């Protein structure tokens, strides 16, 4: 039986992360699995989801046939707006990111280091890369939540160079030198969810006491 079969589904990974969000938080969701967090039922909690393309206050994915072609999240998926939503342009969207207005950001990663750096934008041997907003987000959110999907990434298309040399290690890896496709979070990674059970970072002291 494959390890993936025993692990969490994509939505389950996001549900686990979403449980950490506090009432009133402004949370950025990155492209890929993280965008599924906005589908979680938060009950009485009010979460303001931010997307890098300038959408503040979006909700679940739009139902099939009800998509607004002018409205997408970071992954290009058609989403719905929540009451009180607002739209800004890209420079203002990243202004609020860099100014530390986000309470948390959820990003996909191939691999996460113990110190909070993570490999997320380039695979070994690849030309170019896909940084998107990750470097701005990693450097500036108060709290960074990651999903760890190296197993899925390796199965589908090889691995990042860092991952390849450390693929046998457990979820928390330690290295101090720059790796290929690295984004520096400067110790902001606080919680890492992979398709197997949740691990907390050594930086979990950054989590608010309520969690």
């Amino acid at each position: 039986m494959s390890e993936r079969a025993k692990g969490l589904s994509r939505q389950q990974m996001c549900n686990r992360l979403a449980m950490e969000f506090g009432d009133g938080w402004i949370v950025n969701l990155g492209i890929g699995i993280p965008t599924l967090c906005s589908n979680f039922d938060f009950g009485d909690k009010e979460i303001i989801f931010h997307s890098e393309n300038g959408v503040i206050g979006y909700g679940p994915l739009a139902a099939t046939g009800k998509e607004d072609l002018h409205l997408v999240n970071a992954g290009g998926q058609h989403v719905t707006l929540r009451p009180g939503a607002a739209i800004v342009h890209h420079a203002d969207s990243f202004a609020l990111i860099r100014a530390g207005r986000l309470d948390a950001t959820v990003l996909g990663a191939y691999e996460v280091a113990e110190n909070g750096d993570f490999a997320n934008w380039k695979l070994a041997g690849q030309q170019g890369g896909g940084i998107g907003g990750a470097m701005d987000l990693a450097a500036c959110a108060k709290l960074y939540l990651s999903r760890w999907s190296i197993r899925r990434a390796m199965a589908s298309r090889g691995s990042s160079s860092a991952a390849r040399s450390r693929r046998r290690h457990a979820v928390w890896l330690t290295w101090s030198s720059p790796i290929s496709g690295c984004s520096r979070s400067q110790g902001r990674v606080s919680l890492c969810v992979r398709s197997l059970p949740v691990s907390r970072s050594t930086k979990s002291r950054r989590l608010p006491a309520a969690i």
Partner: protein
Amino acid sequence: MGAKSKVCASFDDAVRDIPDGATIGFGGFAVVGMPINLYQAVANQGAKNLTCVSNSTRGGATLPADAPDMGWLIRNGQIKKVICAFTAPTRASQRLVLTEYVAKGLIEAELTPQGTLAERMRAAGAGIPAFYTPAAVGTELAERRETRFFNGREYLLEHALPLDYACIRAYQADASGNLRFRRSQRNFNPIMAMAARVTVVEVEEDILPVGAIDPDDVHTPGIFVHRLVKIPPAPEGWWPQRPGSVGS
């Protein structure tokens, strides 16, 4: 209006004077606000040695399968350099035209964090030559580049990115060039308009008489806009397609 009309009869007219070697910004994020018709017009026009700035070089799931994107201009041999936040596919199943041309050494690709890309153009439009940002500090993107500490934190120097032309898409325009965008269509479009010497806009709704947009509701003032073209209905004009009606 007294001034020369900004309304152009065709997309081809609107981009006719783009010279070889120009720097052009193409707005849009995941097809929303993407100037599909102006990509087509620039491809038709044929200017070469272009530097093209965009979030990425491909459209997305709602772009009609045969619609133009930056990949067309690359395949056409018109581009010498791209400046993007994505220069590689975001999925293993995707292939970028760019990858092949970069591998052959035909195109230079500058990879930039998305917020830095936006701010470089914002700075250009705001008369600011350079700025410091925390994004990319400590990564390979910052190697051999100037950094500086402020209040104990390290920041990377980034330079403004002025554009010769901005090709953007808006929801509404009046004949004086005042623009409104709808939902996440805004993205890079207003910033590129301010960063550019000449801004060309493809407009989704009929172009309104001057004054029809309340001044308080204008997203991009007409002083930043030079040419407007109304997008004709499909199939003459390019429009995003509903998800499910096209392959991703």
